[in-house]
């Protein structure tokens, strides 16, 4: 296994009396797709928010690319190369799809207000590059033809892809995908599997929070399972598939899985 890109040590997050994430050690190797699964309320989205810096941790530490980023705010982590999508879609709805992706390049471009006022050659060149890279990212996720459409007017599945394009356009070191398959139909899920593989091939490490096993199993190199905020198991998809504790907590119970899917939108958001 290659070097570790992201590591959490005893990371914990409390909401009043509830311990949403309880002393979890997670390690994500460079270049892999790492699945983060678990029953509803297991703390997956909270975990993702801790990794992206959208929630501060109560205790424990987070190491990213050999630096301690535990106290770094979300924007600082984004600048360092951690990008994410949101389970409940946070697009800039009134902006065209292309502009949404262009915003994703904010931290990797330099021109200041001064350059914009004078329209310096540097600024014009950079703007051209931003547009070009944003178009490439739209093409990469298959939204090329919708560049000029307002983000909010796109169909749901396309909005999910647009979030991925915005997060991926700056070629982050680490991409955090929060339930990218939620609400997608079968064909869209298959396309998502292909997209996640292409992101991996492009050299970006991914943490994938997902319920849909038909997306998790074919894409993940390793999987970490959470249950009630605690680490339940880690291993390859094969290991996890055959882990009796995991089966007991989550996979084997068809009825639990259905309940989970039905409640998906509710409880996981409600946590933060």
């Amino acid at each position: 296994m290659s070097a570790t890109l992201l590591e959490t040590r005893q990371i914990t997050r409390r909401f009043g009396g509830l311990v949403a994430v309880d002393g979890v050690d997670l390690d994500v190797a460079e270049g892999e797709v790492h699945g983060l699964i678990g029953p509803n309320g297991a703390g997956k989205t909270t975990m993702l928010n801790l990794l992206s810096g959208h929630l501060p941790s109560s205790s424990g530490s987070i190491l990213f690319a050999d630096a301690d980023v535990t106290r770094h705010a979300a924007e600082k982590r984004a600048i360092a190369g951690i990008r994410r999508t949101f389970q409940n879609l946070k697009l800039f709805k009134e902006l065209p799809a292309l502009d949404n992706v262009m915003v994703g390049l904010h931290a990797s471009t330099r021109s200041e207000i001064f350059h914009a006022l004078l329209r310096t050659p540097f600024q014009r060149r950079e703007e051209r590059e931003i547009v070009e890279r944003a178009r490439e990212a739209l093409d990469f996720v298959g939204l090329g033809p919708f560049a000029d459409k307002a983000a909010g007017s796109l169909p749901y599945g396309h909005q999910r892809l647009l979030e991925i394009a915005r997060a991926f356009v700056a070629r982050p070191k680490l991409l955090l995908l929060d339930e990218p398959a939620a609400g997608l139909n079968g064909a869209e899920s298959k396309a998502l599997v292909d997209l996640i593989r292409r992101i991996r091939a492009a050299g970006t490490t991914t943490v994938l929070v997902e319920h849909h096993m038909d997306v998790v199993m074919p894409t993940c190199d390793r999987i970490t399972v959470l249950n009630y905020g605690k680490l339940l198991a880690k291993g390859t998809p094969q290991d996890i598939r055959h882990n009796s504790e995991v089966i007991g907590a989550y996979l084997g119970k068809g009825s639990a899985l259905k309940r989970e899917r039905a409640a998906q939108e509710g409880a996981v958001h409600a946590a933060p």
Partner: protein
Amino acid sequence: MGIIVNPNLLRILALLALAAVPLVESNSYWLHVFSVALIAAVLALGLQLLVGMAGMLSLGQGAFYGIGAYTAGIVATSFGLPFLLTLLAGGIAAALASLLLIPLVKLKGSSLGVATLGFSIIIHLLILNEEWLTGGSLGLMGIPDPEIFGLNLAHDEAFYWLCLVILALVYVSIDRINTSRFGRALAAIAQDEEAARASGIQIALCKSKCFLIAAFTAGLAGTLYAYHSRYLSPNDFTFNKSIEVLIMVVVGGLGSLPGAVLGAFIVVLMPEYLRSSGELRMILFGTAVVVLMGTGNRGLIGLLQAAASLVLSRLPSFGRSRYVVRPGE
């Protein structure tokens, strides 16, 4: 799709039309009023950047306008600085004053609105009470003619064109800011702060810069006003001024630069045209504002765009042009 016309062409036509006003309107009173409208448009453009682009509701623009006006008035009367330097001084003083409010920029919506309103009230009281500096309730008198490199611009037409040049520069500047990396960051912040942070945008920093630019713009407008009226009275800089600017921006159309200019002209000119209605004029004006807002939140510019696309949709030959006016342009 919106109207299909070249926006640059529209801007140039609008500029030429405004530049021609002194050639057709020789009445010095009306020229005077039109100059006030141009100054108001500069003020409104600054607020449009704040409210329309960055989604920051500010009721402090009137205060920065006052700071700019008094700074220009004081440096012009006490130190005899030439116009271009006082213009710069007015803008910079307002921008520096805005630094005082930087800790507040994180406030959202009505909280920021009320906090900046409080600032407007404080600045008005300072202007009123610090007589040694501002002349207090007697006002500040004796502001000299504006001169640029020895050229006297005090004449009605010359001053009108001076205001127009500055308005055009401010318009182009804010338009360039809007369509830049920084402008996109502001639009992103206005629509979803969490997602903006996830893209590496430093929200407090961007908002502070935006606040500073808007204050600088208000300071420029204040300076022009000082040279225009030659006499500054504290009554011109109550918190009413801040509210008036907000009306301009919202009536014209939130998020639209031409809307801000249009709104400024409506708010300044309409009560003047209604002057014959005597005491009723402010009631008529207020009613017009209420009715216009009742038509939706896109303001006058939204109505104009809807009307124009209705007309143009019946003229298929217009459909070939390569430019599309999107909402907000």
